Every structure is written in structure tokens, then in C-alpha cells.
């Protein structure tokens, strides 16, 4: 097999047993790699109802067919799939940087990790040699310290490490896994799965060749993509970066502020991409084998957080900035830095803090319960103080918030569930769903919970292709094709920032796949793969009791707290009526029942007939 490693590695941390098996060409073609292959392996290697923190819940590292090649962004990636401790459904995340290629060169398309190590350990994958090593000396070390210490003790600077911080060890339900300082397997809490397995890190060194089927054709193809990356399709990422969104969304009344109370932020200018780049960005760097540059490395030049350095993207800037009512970039940079050090998802961290601030403002949390922290909106010092508490699970509130907003709301009680902005247990990303209603629908049906990266449904809203203040019939159907493309993107594991460089969409990606692997692939087949992956993920969620219509919901505030700003958005909420219209339309377009369950015919059409027992009778 070309481009693929051709091997699946199994590691049982309880017994220490390690084994490998070949990857079949059928699995490769039907599930591509990355999250597609990951969701398939999760389904087939877990028992229904397994608690996410049970040793039997597998955590699966994956590479993609392009990983390890010079293919821009596809060359530098990996993914992780498990059952999420936040949602109880599929957890998937992808990260770029430098780690993935080493795992691939070591020879692996997937690493299925089960069991629980008797003491804190890390997995050392050195080509064919796989070892579970003691990590007790790494307890509570930051992600970066862990990275450095492992490379030092294994005595090779070029070893790549994917690790958790203190938050993962303490089972924070939005803990991340981080590689190469600030590249994160961010969402859905997989850092906590690592923690539950006493697995501090995976270190990899791969020295084998990665060969493609048609080197000449592949070279020409990627040269073309590298050229396109110099052009307009990626300009945003290379110039202001994603923080450009701040002023764009603000002008659209879509910059959710103070925990989805307001839809515009009076301090937007001071946390804008323009301001960030002018005053804080020192250098724009990037990942291995990429022709774009998106890592805006921000350094605080003066004041209490002088020297704080972090990469900063829109989502986390938003969640720790406008959503908390904070207009101080120096504090946001410091907050991002420590969030990475504890190893937490920056989106969820900010949204959880904003939730706590909303509770505090409404008197649902008292100052005694915050250990004296004034959690008012806009208090930058409080943001940083509470992140430290969450990372360490310190105090009653820090401990509660580390459970994520859904569970924390139950612990806090009273009106708190009203202020918790999550879908299926995963915190909302940075789009005000009251004024971007295609996004509202798209986020609600995403299989990993609130997510802007499962179907890109904010795009027709932001680009003005639809009436974004209303969900109409046809809106569900509209978001289906992009859902497939996004699944393909995450299975090939190319970066979503590169999506504009594939001018011919799936046709380009199918060509890319075939040049690398030698396996014939058409755009239609790739689309089918995307649909298969979507349905399989849905099936997994149904099997776990989390996949039917009643779980495709929106947060209370999106449905009940009208936008207060004068202007076109005034009074906007998502009404139940329009939302149900959207769901009906989406299920119909997918060939699912009105319960949101794939039909047996649909499963047979996609080659998923073996899972029909999960949907028999149309209900879970």
C-alpha cells in the first residue's frame, strides 16, 4: 500500500500487551483515514454504554493517507477519536504541527489504546519498538515541560510529543491533548480520556520512508496547491489571521458578548485582529509542510503579563475576550498561554468562564463560592484566576467548572442551566446563533456537539447567501454537502484553512488521494465516504443513547434571550417553530426518520448494513 503506513497498532495499558495488524484496503478506501477510520475503529472496538473514563473506552490516534508527505497541511496532521467525556458521543479532533508525520513514519495509520496503566506513564513509539514508560516524574507538568523532558530523557531533539497537562490528569472534561507547544486535539475532552488511562503522553519517532504511488504526478499536484496557497484563497490566514472575524462578526451583530447576552461588543476594536497584529504579533509561523502561515505568535510587550507568549486564533480570543466582556488583549494572551499549559480546550475554557460570570452577575454564584474572586463580566484578573482554579480543580467552583458547563450547571443549581451555552454538553464556539440561524441548525445536528467545524454552516450566513435571521425550509438540505466535505477533510486530515485551495472541491481531493495512494477514487465516491462517516458517527451516538432528535438542541439563551441591540438583529432568538422546521428538513435531506435516525435502507446504501440492529424500528 502506498502512502498509508499499512498497520494498526494496539496497546493495552493494563496488561502492557502490544500488537499490530494490517490495515485492509477496503477500510482505507471506505473510511480514508483520520476521523473516518477512527470512528469506524471506535464503533467496532467498544461496547455500548462504556463510560468514557472506563479503561475499556479506547482512545485512538490516527494519521491520514497524506501524513508524512510534502502535501501541504495534509502532510503534517493527525487525529484522535474516542467517546467524549463531555457529550457521551463521538469525540473527534485533528491537529497539525509536527507530531503526525513521525507517527506515520513509524508505520501506523492508527493506534488503538485501551486499558489503564497502573501508574502515570507515557507511550514511546520508536518505529517498530513500542514501550510503556514511567511518567510519574511528569505528574502535573505543563504540556511544554512534558515535551521537553521527554525529548531530553530519550535524548533526541527531533522526537515529537503529544501530551496532556494537569487538567487532563485531573479529568477536566474539556481537557485537550497538545503537540508542538500550541497545536491542540482541542475539543470534546480527550485530554481527560488520556488522564483516565494514566497516559501522560505519546512520544513518537519515525524513520521509515513514506512513499506515494505516483511521485511525479503527486509532485506536480502539490506544487500547484503550494502556489495556490500564495494566493487569495488563504490570504486571511496569512495576514490578520482568524482574529479578522472580530470586527466582521461584530458588524453583523454576531459577536456573542457577555455569555450570549449581547451580540455586539463595545470593546471590539481593542480585541480586533487589526489591534492584535499591530500591538502584539511578533511573528507568523506555521506547521511542517505547509505553504500557508497562520500561527500568529503574540507576545505581551509590557504590563503585568509582560513576556506572555501564545498563539492566538479567533475562537479563543472571542471566548476569553468578548464572551467574558474583556477588552484587554494582554490578559487574553496570558489566559491562552496558561490554558495551553494546563492543557485545556481554549473555546470551552472561555465559554465555561463566561457561564460562571453570568451566574455570578445573576447571584446564582456568590462571592463566597468563588473564594473571593469578583467574577463580574469584564474582570480580566478574574478570568486568569479562575482558569488557574479550573486547571487545578481548586475549590468548590474550580472543581465544578472543570466538569464543563452542562454538568457544572447541575452542580451549581438554581437558574444556572439557563446560562450554560452548550449543545450535547460541548460549549458553543464563537458565533451568535441568534443572528446566524443556519449555523444554529448546523451546530445543533453536529455529532460532536456544538461545533463550527462539522459542516461550516456559519458560512452561508456570514457570506450573506441566505436570510440569516430565519430558518426556512431548504436550510437543512443546504448544510448536507458541506458536512460530507468536512468529514472528508478531517479523514484525509488536510487543514480546514486550506479548503479554499482545492478549487475543484472533492474532485481535487479525490485526485490528491489517488496520486498518493494509488487507490482509484472519484469525487462521488469521496462524497459517499463523507456521508458514510456522518451516518456512522450518528449511529455511534444513537447506540450510546445520545443520537436522536431530542439531543439536537440549542442552548436556553439562544432560544429565550432576545438580542438587545437596536438594529436589524433586535429581539432575535431562534424560535422553536423555525428550529423544528430546520430539523425536519435536515433529517429528510439525510434520508433519516423524523426521529433523526438513519433508515435501514440508508445504511444498506452506504454499506453500513451490519449496524442495522442499532436502528431497528426507526428508534434507538
Amino acid at each position, binding site marked *: 500500500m502506498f502512502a498509508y503506513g499499512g498497520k494498526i497498532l494496539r496497546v493495552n495499558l493494563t496488561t502492557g500487551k502490544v500488537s499490530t495488524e494490517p490495515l485492509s484496503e477496503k477500510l482505507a478506501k471506505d473510511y480514508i483515514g483520520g476521523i473516518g477510520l477512527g470512528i469506524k475503529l471506535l464503533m467496532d472496538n467498544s461496547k455500548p454504554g462504556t463510560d468514557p473514563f472506563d479503561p475499556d473506552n479506547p482512545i485512538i490516534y490516527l494519521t491520514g493517507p497524506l501524513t508524512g508527505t510534502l502535501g501541504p497541511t495534509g502532510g503534517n496532521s493527525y487525529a484522535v477519536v474516542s467517546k467524549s467525556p463531555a457529550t457521551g458521543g463521538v469525540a473527534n479532533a485533528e491537529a497539525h504541527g509536527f507530531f503526525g508525520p513521525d507517527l506515520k513514519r513509524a508505520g501506523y495509520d492508527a493506534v488503538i489504546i485501551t486499558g489503564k496503566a497502573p501508574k502515570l506513564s507515557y507511550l514511546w513509539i520508536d518505529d517498530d519498538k513500542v514501550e510503556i514508560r514511567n511518567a510519574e516524574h511528569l505528574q502535573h507538568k505543563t504540556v511544554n515541560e512534558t515535551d521537553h523532558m521527554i525529548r531530553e530523557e530519550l535524548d533526541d531533539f527531533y522526537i515529537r510529543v503529544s501530551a496532556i497537562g494537569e487538567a487532563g490528569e485531573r479529568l477536566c472534561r474539556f481537557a485537550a491533548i497538545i503537540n508542538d507547544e500550541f497545536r491542540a486535539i482541542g475539543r470534546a475532552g480527550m485530554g481527560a480520556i488520556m488522564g483516565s488511562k494514566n497516559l501522560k503522553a505519546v512520544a513518537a519517532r519515525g524513520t521509515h520512508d513514506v512513499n506515494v504511488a505516483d511521485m511525479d504526478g503527486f509532485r506536480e499536484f502539490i506544487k500547484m496547491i503550494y502556489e495556490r496557497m500564495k494566493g487569495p484563497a488563504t490570504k486571511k490566514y496569512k495576514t490578520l489571521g482568524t482574529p479578522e472575524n472580530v470586527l466582521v462578526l461584530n458588524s453583523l451583530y454576531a459577536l456573542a458578548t457577555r455569555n450570549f447576552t449581547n451580540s455586539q461588543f463595545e470593546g471590539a476594536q481593542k480585541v480586533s485582529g487589526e489591534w492584535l497584529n499591530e500591538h502584539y504579533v511578533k511573528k507568523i509561523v506555521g506547521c511542517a509542510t505547509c505553504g500557508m502561515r497562520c500561527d500568529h*505568535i503574540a507576545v505581551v510587550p509590557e504590563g503585568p503579563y509582560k513576556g506572555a507568549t501564545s498563539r492566538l486564533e479567533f475562537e479563543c480570543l472571542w471566548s476569553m475576550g468578548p464572551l467574558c466582556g474583556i477588552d484587554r488583549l494582554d490578559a487574553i494572551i496570558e489566559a491562552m498561554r496558561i490554558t495551553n499549559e494546563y492543557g485545556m480546550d481554549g473555546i470551552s475554557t472561555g465559554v465555561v468562564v463566561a457561564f460562571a460570570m453570568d451566574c455570578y452577575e445573576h447571584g446564582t454564584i456568590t462571592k463566597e463560592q468563588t473564594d473571593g474572586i469578583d467574577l463580574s463580566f469584564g474582570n480580566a484578573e478574574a478570568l486568569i484566576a479562575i482558569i488557574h482554579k479550573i486547571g487545578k480543580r481548586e475549590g468548590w467552583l474550580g472543581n465544578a467548572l472543570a466538569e464543563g458547563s452542562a454538568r457544572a450547571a447541575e452542580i451549581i443549581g438554581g437558574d444556572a442551566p439557563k446560562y450554560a451555552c452548550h449543545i450535547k454538553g460541548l460549549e458553543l464556539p464563537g458565533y451568535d446563533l441568534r443572528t446566524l440561524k443556519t449555523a444554529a441548525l448546523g451546530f445543533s445536528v453536529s455529532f460532536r456537539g456544538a461545533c463550527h467545524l462539522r459542516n461550516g454552516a456559519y458560512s452561508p450566513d456570514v457570506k450573506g447567501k441566505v436570510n440569516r435571521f430565519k430558518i426556512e425550509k431548504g436550510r437543512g438540505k443546504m448544510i448536507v454537502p458541506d458536512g460530507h466535505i468536512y468529514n472528508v477533510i478531517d479523514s484525509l486530515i488536510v487543514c480546514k484553512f486550506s479548503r479554499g485551495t482545492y478549487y475543484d472541491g472533492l474532485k481535487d481531493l479525490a485526485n490528491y488521494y489517488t496520486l498518493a495512494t494509488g487507490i482509484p477514487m472519484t469525487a462521488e465516491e469521496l462524497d459517499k465516504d463523507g456521508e458514510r462517516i456522518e451516518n456512522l458517527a450518528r449511529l455511534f451516538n444513537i447506540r450510546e443513547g445520545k443520537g436522536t432528535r431530542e439531543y439536537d438542541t440549542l442552548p436556553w439563551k439562544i432560544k429565550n434571550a432576545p438580542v438587545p441591540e437596536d438594529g436589524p438583529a433586535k429581539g432575535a432568538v431562534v424560535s422553536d417553530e423555525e428550529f423544528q422546521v430546520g430539523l425536519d428538513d435536515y433529517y429528510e435531506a439525510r434520508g433519516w426518520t423524523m426521529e433523526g435516525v438513519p433508515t435501514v435502507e440508508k445504511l444498506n446504501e452506504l454499506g453500513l448494513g451490519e449496524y442495522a440492529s442499532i436502528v431497528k424500528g426507526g428508534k434507538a
Partner: protein
Amino acid sequence: MVRAQDRKFVSSDPEKCIGCCVCEYACSMTNENTFNPTKSRIRALRLGPLNNLAVTCRHCEDPACVAACPREALTQEEDTGIITVDEEACDGCAWCISACPFGAMMMHPEKKVAFTCNSCKDQEDGPQCVKWCPEEALTFVTAQQLAQKSRISAVRNLFQEAKEKKAESK
């Protein structure tokens, strides 16, 4: 006959290099027909997000690697300055690697002999790492050209600073 000062080598600009390793993959693709940075003749180093540099052979004058070789397996080409390794004579003792102060001499992971940058001399358009570098951080230059470049930018900065100071004092 090329004069020694006209020898070109691949140089990386620390201001521009971001440590992305595209050069490593381009090198192994060109010289080894595979993707494998451990077979690359240029290696990128990221000490931190702001500190990046790619390093390869600088075709030194009176090269330490050649002097260190106990088997006379290494020679320097007169015209280009390229260090060639006689793979029959080399026994992988790594004295040349100890001698190179830049880590530009390396051990080939499969052949177990020393290897280093050959300036892609078989390629019509020169070193392929330079062609592929997305940041234009790599250049194929002589020492003279490098010195000129540094001189020009240093002087330009001095004038710029002087101008700014003058403007501030006004």
C-alpha cells in the same frame, strides 16, 4: 575555474525561516525519491516559535570534515565546494560529524555512511529546497553576497533609526 569566494551554498535567513521543514521534504523527494526528513541533507530546527533556522553544509574553506576523515573518503570539489563522500571508503566512523560545527554532516540512516548537501548539482534549477521554501527564507548564495545583504540591511536600518530619531525630536 571558479574562485573559492564564488562558491555558493544554501543559507537560511533567521528572520524569515519558520522551521516548517518543507526544505527537508523537498530534499528527500529530490535526492532520495521518497518523503523522509531523516534522509534530508538540510535540517530545520525550531527552538521555540520565534527561533527557527534551517541548517545545511556551508562548503567551508579548508573543511574540518574532510580533515577529520581517517580514510580519505571525503573530498571537496574544487569548483563548487561540495563535499563528496566516497561511499566505498566511508565506514561510518562519524569523525566528520564530530568535526562539523554546524551539524551539517550527517549519517545516512540506511547506507550508514556520511552524507551532506550536494547543492542539487544534477538539478537544472539548482537546490530544490530553495525552490520549495514557501517563505523565501533559503537562498543559494556566496559568502560575499551574504555579507553584502547584511551590510545593506544594517546600513538601511541605521539610516531608518536616525530618521526616526530626528522625527521624534522635532
